[in-house]
């Protein structure tokens, strides 16, 4: 049974379409990275999963239960780190956790939870004096209350320094090993690739890719991007390059002189010699390894260029 099933979900705010017929599944026991630039609709999706907002159309099922009809039952078994939320200034970390423990009817100890997130020193200090990173640690501790079956972490690295972000990822791994499904949203690929089994990339309210980290890397650029600056280019030469077995795609960036951008998964010299065979002068060339960031960017920005 999937932990989260989103089915043809649409959400509009007046004229603005925030989610457009979105469908995806988060499998039980996996760490799912929900990736997308700010404003892509990640928080809207999470808001509907948690019944903070109501769908315009479509259905969401969490832990086998309808997200709207059984929201309380779902939240009994879910730990949530919401995004862009202020903690209660006048309450201490202990009081925050006692409230969460009481609400969840759990038996955790505030000290033990704060120990895990590295905030135990500030347990009796009021949250009003916390830094952003400390508030984030406190909220992560609140999400861990009651050993939830599902963890929903919305931009959990906000306000954390690299060290804090690493500790947060360690906790995600520990929770996953315990058996929890983790749904982890972020706008930074780097934070997702280290912990996630699968990644879904959201853009303008639509899922543009869902795959494992490796699969994503493979799918987009077969590994290397070759940029070749030439004196001129013609269709004949372009077709010849494209028909090479190792070439994924080849596009021309107009300019003087024009540049050929080729995704190549093997011999680069084959590309160069093909061009030269057709009498085209190669003035310069460079290669770059596709990083996951490029993958993310290609899904979230370049696709937009292609669409126009």
């Amino acid at each position: 049974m999937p932990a989260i099933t989103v089915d043809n979900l649409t959400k509009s705010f007046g004229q603005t379409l925030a989610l457009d017929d979105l469908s995806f599944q988060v499998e039980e026991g996996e760490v799912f990275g929900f990736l997308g630039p700010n404003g892509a609709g990640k928080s809207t999706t999470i808001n509907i999963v948690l019944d903070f907002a109501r769908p315009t159309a479509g259905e969401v099922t969490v832990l086998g239960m309808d997200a709207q009809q059984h929201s309380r039952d779902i939240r009994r078994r879910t730990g949530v780190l919401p995004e862009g939320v202020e903690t209660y200034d006048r309450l201490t970390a202990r009081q925050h956790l006692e409230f969460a423990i009481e609400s969840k009817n759990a038996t955790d100890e505030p000290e033990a939870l704060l120990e895990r997130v590295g905030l135990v020193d500030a347990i009796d200090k009021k949250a009003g004096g916390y830094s952003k990173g400390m508030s984030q640690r406190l909220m992560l501790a609140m999400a861990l209350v009651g050993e939830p079956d599902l963890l929903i972490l919305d931009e959990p690295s906000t306000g954390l320094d690299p060290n804090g972000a690493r500790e947060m990822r360690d906790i995600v791994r520990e929770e996953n090993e315990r058996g929890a499904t983790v749904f982890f949203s972020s706008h930074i690929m780097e934070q997702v690739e280290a912990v996630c089994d699968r990644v879904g990339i959201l853009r303008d309210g639509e899922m543009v890719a869902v795959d494992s980290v490796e699969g994503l890397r493979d799918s987009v650029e077969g590994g290397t991007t070759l940029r070749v600056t030439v004196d001129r280019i013609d269709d004949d030469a372009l077709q010849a390059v494209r028909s090479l077995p190792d070439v994924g795609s080849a596009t021309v960036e107009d300019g003087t002189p024009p540049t050929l951008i080729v995704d190549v998964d093997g011999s680069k010299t084959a590309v160069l010699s093909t061009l030269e065979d057709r009498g085209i002068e190669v003035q310069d060339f460079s290669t770059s390894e596709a990083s996951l960031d490029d993958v993310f960017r290609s899904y979230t920005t370049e696709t937009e260029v292609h669409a126009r």
Partner: protein
Amino acid sequence: MSAETGSATAGSGGAASSSVNPESVRAIAKKDFQDSVRSWLFWGLSAFFFALLVIVTGVLSYFGEDIAAQGATTGMLVLFVSQITKLVVPLIALVLGWKSIAGERESGSIKILLSLPNSRKDVLLGKLLGRSAVLSLSLTVGFGLAAIVVAALLGGFDVVDYAGLLVMSIVYGVAYTSIAVALSSLTRSTTMAGAAMAGIFVMFYGVWNGLEGAFRLLAQREFLFFDTVTYTATVQGQEFEAERLQDWVYFVLNLDPGQAYTNGLTLLTDVDALENQATINAQMFGGEFPIFLQDWFSFLILLFWIAVPMVVALYQFDRVDI
């Protein structure tokens, strides 16, 4: 918790999102109490309130000998204090309840409440309970401290009357807290909520107080369905005819929580001064007040102001996006 193996737990409870769980309500009320009882604004208002009480007592004790001779010291105290509380209690309640929901929506912290297994109804009821508890604490502390001052200055007072004033003030305060929390949940921003609070205050202290005059003018001109009713009154053995407004006008006038508070006080306390203040008497209604003008009915009016705003808010708050 984690022992649940999570296969077919669905089925339990139809629309769980809109149910009320007493334990959740209690947890939210407790948290809310802890939070707002530490508010600087709250203590400022309480100190202000206490200062007012002490000033009244001081003035009273200054002229106290004359009044004490008439055996009406507590009566005068209740009368003066109730006129202050009639105005100050709503102010404290509205200020306390103003941000209760709108503020949490603005800062996003409402997501902390609603990420946990609390329903939106739990949040509203918990907030009402928490803020009411804070208000009751403020009033009890204020009245208690003032009582010591009163006892020291006046050399004793009627505890029952004084306790009656406190209980009535708390019920009155809860009514305004309910109005405040409900309005706070119906608005998205604290600015809008603040405007709503000001609107409520103006409505009951401006508009409602002016209503009687307005109705009287309309009745004298027999405008539309407005009219006057003629009754026979006896004053010092002499009978004469007088005019009063229609019954329903008095009903409308009495819907004001402040009016209900004053009327309720005459029932809970034994203070003649309050009765003498009344602008209406039973003679106007042929010897006996209609039900809605009897003192006990004012409790129903206050209950109405506690229940109705909450019912509206409970219905509406379940239907919006947070």
